[in-house]
């Protein structure tokens, strides 16, 4: 079967972009290959580990099981786009540093983007709810302990409430 290509237009990290992709390509492949968004990590390529997570119109998706052509007309945020224009870290990135939530760093981009979606909801989640919301990501280094703390701490900060474990 001859390869088929299609032109895709979308917004990547605030910038309108256009590219031509192999219709079989995953969003992971397009972001890593065509745009060199190397924060989008490949850990399983079948939607099990969460390392390739990006935000599509504000919602977290495993980009490895999302076709590149489906990006048409979408707003896509990768970790490269989370930093402010002058290099300012977002609160959740800073919390990952302060709470020692980073080890090998391979699951980190995906976790931070899912956390961004969770935090943008502006909801005060219980521990159980928060754990469930984060459970689509696998990490082998941290036991999730400090990742969970970083997200929870930032949630309270955004809600303007004292962090119970502060």
């Amino acid at each position: 079967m001859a390869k088929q290509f299609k032109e895709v237009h979308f917004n990547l990290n605030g910038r309108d972009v256009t590219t031509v992709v192999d219709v079989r390509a995953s969003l992971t492949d397009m972001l890593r290959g065509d745009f060199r968004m190397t924060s989008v990590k490949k850990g399983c390529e079948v939607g099990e580990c969460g390392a390739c997570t990006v935000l599509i119109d504000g919602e977290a998706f495993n980009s490895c099981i999302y076709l590149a052509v489906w990006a048409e007309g979408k707003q896509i945020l990768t970790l490269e786009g989370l930093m402010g224009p002058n290099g300012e870290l977002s609160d959740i990135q800073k919390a990952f540093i302060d709470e020692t939530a980073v080890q090998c760093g391979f699951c980190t981009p995906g976790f931070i983007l899912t956390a961004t979606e969770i935090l943008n909801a502006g909801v005060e989640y219980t521990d159980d709810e928060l754990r469930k919301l984060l459970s689509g990501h696998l990490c082998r280094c941290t036991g999730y302990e400090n990742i969970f703390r970083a997200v929870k701490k930032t949630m309270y900060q955004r809600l303007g409430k004292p962090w119970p474990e502060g």
Partner: protein
Amino acid sequence: MSRNIGKSVARVDAFDKVTGRAKYTDDRCDRGALVARVVRSTIAHGYVKSVDVSQAEKIPGVVKIVTCFDVPDIKFPTAGHPWSVEEAHQDVADRRLLNRHVRYWGDDVAAVVAEDEVAAAQAARAIKVEYETLPFVLDPIEAMQPGAPVLHKEYPDNVLKHTSSRSGDYAAAIQEPGLICVDKWYEVPTVQHCHIENHICFAYGENGRIVVVTSTQIPHIVRRTVGQALGIPWGNVQIIKPYIGGGFGNKQDTLYEPLCAWLSLQVGGRTVKLDIPREDTFVSNRVRHAQKIHIISWVRPDGTYAARKLELYSNQGAYASHGHSIAAKGMGAFPQMYPCPNVECDSYTVYTNRSTAGAMRGYGIPQVMFAFESHTEDVCRRLGMDSLAFRRKNLMPVGYVDSFSKNENYFDTFNQCFDKAIAYMDYERKHREYENQTGPVRKGIGIAPFWYNTAVWPISLEHSSCRMVLNQDGSIQLQVGETEIGQGADTAYAQMAADVIGLKDYTDVHVQSCQDTDVTPFGLGAYASRQTYTAGFSIRQTGLILKDKILEYANEMTRVAKYDLDIVDSQIVRVTDGRVLMPLSQLATEAFYSLTHSVHITAESTYQIKNNAYSFGCCCAEVEVDIPLCKVKVTKIINVHDCGRLINPALAAAQVHGGMSMGIGYALSEQLLFDPKTGRPLNNNLLDYKLSTVMDHPHLEAQFVENYEPTSAFGTKALGEPPACPVAPAIRNAILNATGVEVDQAPMTPHVLYRRFCEEGLIHDSWREEEQ
């Protein structure tokens, strides 16, 4: 000297990792790279009779197909051990680049190089392999029986190695009247490391040499093994190791670097990338050795051991990898942990037709701790003795010296760790209260200590090399051969170097994290929880050399005697009155550009480490057991470690969390299953292999006892692997406390618990009883 050491400073690589900038192997690969795929055997044991590539070659984009009939006839070792110049101590060389004699389901038969991933995958599927099928064996004890299928003709009984140790007279000792005999078997499963970055490498030719960029823990060792595998001078190989997405021992082995390098050479040195899919990582990288462990204890009614015996059968899988070292380390712990005058130990590492086992966090100790500490609890039940009191009485005493390693137990670490764990968990009260529960859901609490020794001396070479370079601004470039693999080693090195030299802040030390065997000083990489221990020596030694050179230059500039000068907070200070003479940056700039005496101030040295250190601790876990559902939930858990002085307490705690998580998985959910009918792996993916998620843990409490380790350059000792060692037996003993049922097999899944609860009468299943 502790402005930086002992502080929970942020990781040196944290910013790059939270912004997605940190570059891993695939991020450094050129987009134009060719892509390789490995064709794997679909039988567990046999010979490749023929390989038909005719259909595969027609697929557009295919560049080259090679098979097991094309590779050089060279056998090579893969273990991430230092090479031995004595032939008798060299690692077993039983690997080829591709295999005609396939020894496990998933063995490497052929490889495709193509222009893109899709073409490579399609071609790999289109290759037809014809096999002569042989009988296979999956269990180590069955593999030792006469008539079992033979994997390697050099090992007709499949025993890769058998070692034993004897002390006292076991046979005579068990004649003592009044002894109670506890004779039990324990079994632990095959598990996989599951680092989130799969093993990946790419190779290309440059200046007549071969360069391999790879996700490895051991770049300098891989350089040697690639040279050996390809039969080329080792100097013609350059290994580059960028950030890696976890290793846990799997990447303390040569994986696909030799094949990738060879494939590149088959296509004229063009760049070839070999990215191992997750499913193949489970099967064709390394796994943790499954073991069957038999312990016989002869104990007096007063709770002292008269004689003990250990038999350990370690499932090596198809190839030698780290070989017997893992079983040997586990066996070595047996006579040391509970010293007893009459001990017999035997361990066997046995080839089987399963995925190859190698190093994995703990290197044999998580396996044996499950057996040893389950057994301790079982012995105490027979005696009617409190197991904590028994452990306090019988564990390795202060002042114990191991005759082989010369390791000394300097401190009362076991008791100190127990005390912290007990206080946090309220262990003693709960343990009594939970003993006689009724009802479907019961609580339990359990405890387990562990034995671990840092590094590998005197079994093999331990040395560390370090290079420091003074920059114009008074900052330092630092290189060591010990690798950053996610554990935070680079940050610890920066903290240590800053304090040795007298720099104000650890951020004044720039650690060259990406290692390159052309540039990085020779070192053995990351393993054996030795990085802060071994690198500490070379960092301290090299830092002092550098400092001395700086002070010599300061003497030239100030005329103050070198001995009256010091570096404090990055300033040159006159010691006699504390006067600041100049900032280090001024000296550094002068040294670079002086018209009278310009010098590039650098230091480099190697330290050979001829000692080793015990690193002990314990885990205490509380569980809730739902008997009808046969499910266990960990509700509270703590690990307490004595890893000496903490260089960075926050990073140390983070190491402990990760190990505890791995231990919880080992106890309750993780196992790689193989179909007994075909030898095919059944759950080699992250959906069916049950890695813990954030929902499967309670809060993970990490605490420390800080006894300054006297043999260490900075008072530190092992912490990387130890946290994974005591968790599974602590959980097992908690289940015992809750239910009164001894479960002697991990993982303690509902399947296992159902069988045990039925056997012990906790569950009455009329269907099951009728079947029997």
